[in-house]
């Protein structure tokens, strides 16, 4: 990054929720990226210097192309964060888009997460009688409780309280991070879906990390409320004392089973190695507090506000106490920062190298690579397309085939034709009326009255209704004729074509199953025209047009298959049920 003029001195302390928080730059060049301090599957957290106010911040860079969450989910998450302003809740400053990354600018919590800290202490072999001492635990957890109290008062449930989501600032401040339905944001531990996919990304059925999860959250038959956080809070307390959550060594399914079947964990049952040591180190009041949180019945657990009054929290000190204890005990900032190899021209992108490190790709390199990728598989939307004529091919209502179908009933057909003609006449009148109104509205919008608007809408509704009726009749008529030859046929006809009778079983908007039967004459009908007719007749949703046409084609080409069941892509995978045709449709050939 080119050296810039020294920025004008700016206040380094950002008041929570004050006007200052709105004054963060949204320009990439105003941030000087420093060390990587954390990473997930599709994101990294990097320290950075904000040049406009000379403040150290943490920037979470999310790769939108790879990230399994939709943009709406990210928006919801960030909306929640920016709607929170509390000393014990992660401070969010701003967010903006840089190429295909989303950058989240947050307060720098240089102490790292409590998980980093306890891991470090355990690694140093300093944890025989418990990882953190009681006063530290009380001080940290009191801050967490105040954060949770704020969440709950705002009608939010955190759903993923654990040491890994509690951040410690340089000054000993405690903040709860990563809230809402979004463990993906800071944590890649529970990416059950594995690979990122957009439309089909598997929806996690439950949120949270199994070891910290309350029994009622696991048992999906009952709902849960903010008391689920209190359970996780109790588990976190045990985690801070023993270094891991109870059952941490078991695979997720086993954890679910143990949590649902065993009595709630206690210091004794989870600290299997140093059981007696723990009992010496941690007071009765700590154990009582944990016991209160870990009650199976959520209603019996105290609220976040009630819990703060528990005797145990009398031990809590001011936050600068934590500077003396855990920040000194914890890993140094530099040791957490992973070195990043940097290639000059630093607006490139970060990516993980094979050895697990991080590297920058040079902008130009990656663009060249993109270029090559595209080169290989590129149709060109020919810009110099010679557009000579704008005539739209008129819909050809070709005469009924002189009788490919002996079942045709001429009288029924002429009746239908008459009805269709009537409807067409009506529609013509309505359309003229509506056109008049529309021109009026366009020419003189100011004088367009409520009444006129209403009648315009009513006309449109009527026209649409008639259109549907008409198409339905046409569809019937075409079935009587044994084909739907309204459109020029695009498919090459096979030689000996036999009539195919189809039945499409699909759910209506009201969720009723219905059967739609229609005939298809290979060589005469085309799948797209047929599927289009079904839409026009109001029998099929627009969004299914192509997939239905595709499956008709499949059966036409290979009638021996008889039956096809295909997904409609209109439903989250968790709700899909192929047998009941929920999110699926079935197409079969009738003998």
């Amino acid at each position: 990054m080119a050296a810039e003029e020294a920025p004008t001195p700016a206040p380094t302390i950002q008041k929570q929720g004050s006007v200052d928080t709105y004054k963060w730059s949204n320009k990439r060049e105003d941030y000087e990226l420093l060390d990587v301090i954390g990473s997930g599957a599709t994101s990294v957290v990097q320290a950075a210097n904000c040049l406009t106010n000379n403040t150290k911040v943490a920037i979470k860079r999310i790769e939108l192309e790879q990230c399994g969450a939709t943009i709406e989910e990210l928006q919801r998450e960030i909306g929640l964060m920016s709607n929170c302003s509390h000393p014990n809740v992660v401070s969010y400053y701003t967010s903006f888009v840089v190429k295909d990354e989303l950058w989240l600018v947050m307060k720098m919590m240089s102490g790292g997460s409590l998980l980093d800290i306890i891991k470090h202490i355990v690694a140093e072999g300093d944890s025989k009688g418990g990882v953190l001492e009681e006063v530290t635990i009380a001080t940290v957890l009191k801050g967490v409780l105040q954060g949770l109290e704020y969440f709950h008062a705002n009608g939010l449930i955190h759903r993923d309280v654990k040491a890994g989501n509690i951040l410690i600032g340089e000054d000993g401040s405690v903040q709860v991070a990563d809230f809402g339905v979004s463990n993906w944001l800071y944590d890649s531990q529970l990416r059950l879906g594995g690979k990122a996919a957009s439309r089909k990304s598997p929806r996690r059925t439950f949120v949270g990390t199994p070891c910290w999860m309350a029994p009622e959250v696991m048992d999906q038959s009952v709902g849960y409320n903010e008391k689920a956080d209190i359970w996780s809070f109790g588990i976190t307390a045990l985690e801070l004392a023993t270094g891991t959550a109870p059952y941490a060594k078991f695979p997720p399914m086993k954890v679910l089973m143990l949590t649902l079947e065993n009595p709630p964990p206690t210091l004794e049952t989870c600290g299997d190695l140093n059981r007696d040591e723990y009992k010496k180190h941690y007071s009765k009041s700590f154990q009582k507090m944990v016991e209160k949180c870990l009650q199976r019945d959520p209603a019996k657990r105290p609220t976040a506000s009630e819990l703060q009054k528990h005797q145990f929290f009398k031990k809590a000190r001011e936050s600068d106490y934590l500077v003396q204890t855990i920040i000194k005990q914890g890993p140094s900032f530099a040791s957490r920062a992973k070195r990043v190899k940097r290639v000059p021209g630093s607006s490139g992108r970060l990516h993980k190298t094979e050895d697990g490190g991080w590297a920058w790709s040079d902008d130009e390199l990656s663009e060249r690579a993109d270029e090559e990728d595209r080169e290989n598989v590129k149709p060109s939307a020919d810009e110099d397309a010679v557009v000579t004529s704008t005539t739209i091919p008129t819909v050809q209502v070709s005469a009924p085939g002189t009788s490919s179908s002996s079942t045709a009933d001429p009288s029924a057909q002429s009746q239908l034709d008459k009805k269709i003609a009537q409807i067409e006449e009506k529609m013509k009148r309505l359309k003229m009326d509506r056109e008049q109104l529309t021109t009026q509205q366009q020419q003189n919008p100011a004088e367009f009255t409520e009444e006129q608007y209403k009648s315009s809408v009513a006309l449109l509704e009527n026209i649409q209704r008639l259109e549907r009726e008409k198409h339905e009749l046409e569809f019937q008529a075409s079935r009587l004729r044994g084909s739907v030859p309204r459109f020029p046929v695009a498919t090459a006809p096979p030689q000996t074509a036999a009539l195919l009778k189809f039945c499409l079983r699909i759910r209506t908007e009201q969720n009723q199953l219905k059967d739609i039967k229609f005939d298809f004459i290979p060589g005469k009908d085309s799948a797209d025209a047929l599927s289009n007719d079904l839409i026009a007749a109001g029998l099929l949703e627009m969004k299914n047009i192509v997939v239905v046409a595709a499956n008709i084609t499949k059966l036409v080409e290979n009638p021996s298959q008889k039956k096809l069941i295909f997904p409609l892509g209109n439903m989250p995978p968790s709700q899909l049920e192929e047998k009941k045709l929920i999110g699926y449709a079935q197409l079969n050939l009738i003998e």
Partner: protein
Amino acid sequence: MPLFKSSPKSPQELAKGLKEALGVLSSGGAKRAEKAAEEAAKILGQIKVMLYGSGDQEPQPELTAQLAQEFYNHDILLHLINNMAKLDFEAKKDLAQIFNNVLRRQIGTRCPTVEYLCSKFELVLKLIRGYENPEVALNCGMMLRECVRHEPLAKLILENGDFYLFFKFVELSTFDVASDAFAMFRDLLTRHKILCANFLETNYEKVFVDHYQKLLNSENYVTRRQSLKLLGELLLDRHNFTTMSLYINNPDNLKLMMKMLIDPSRNIQFEAFHVFKVFVANPNKSKPILDILLRNREKLTDFLTKFHTDRTEDQQFNDEKQYLIKQIREMQPAADTATATAEAAAV
């Protein structure tokens, strides 16, 4: 009232107190304004409790009715919105919740607050303009979202020129504000089906040609991706049949979609596919459309064959892709093209 330590204020008292505080807030000096903001925040907190209840205390319908009446009579909502930027963080949130509660009020089938807002539409416009001020943008968004649920208000917003401001808001640099504005934009164009269909049809040129095109060509990755996705949703909604027909018969749109099929972003390619398929599946292709597809036939079939081949688990996508390839491969030139070529050859 022995039940309470201090008796709660009546709706009239609350409204009066709030009005006074807001008066000072908008005109008073810095010092007085600060106090007034505190007072307003306090009263907003009390009003919130009155409307939502607290703990086991249920809200009382007659009190909420009186409160709403005070709000209409003294234009309290308008004063609140005008002074919103001066309220503190939590008070703004309270305001949004109060606003939404009052807006949801119903007497039988009537929504008195909706009627009130229709007559004081400048208030809604103020909320829309709120997106321009990052300090209140998301609070305004919360209130607007509730407004848009009500068809009469949605209709007024669509018909008012201010609707077109959203094309600007969705490209604001702050992601959460821009994407909140986009969610609103989508709501406005999709929530009330008939209203939306009518709006899109009547204003097709202005919406799609003059404005929407710019979103699809935006520099901002998120804008491109989101607007393309919404376009697909709009075109594939059967209420928008007429709009779709207009859209898929314009060769410029087809060219744009073909360009987006080769966008560097796979997500954008994929969304583009879902719009592109409608052009190909249309049995009544206009000649220019047919021409483009025919001219690119080889390239397109080749391209589609190699397109996102790793999506093996997505059956719908693969079915549709195979179908498109087949359609394009077997496509026949329009009858008049054939004659035209024949004539040209004869000359």
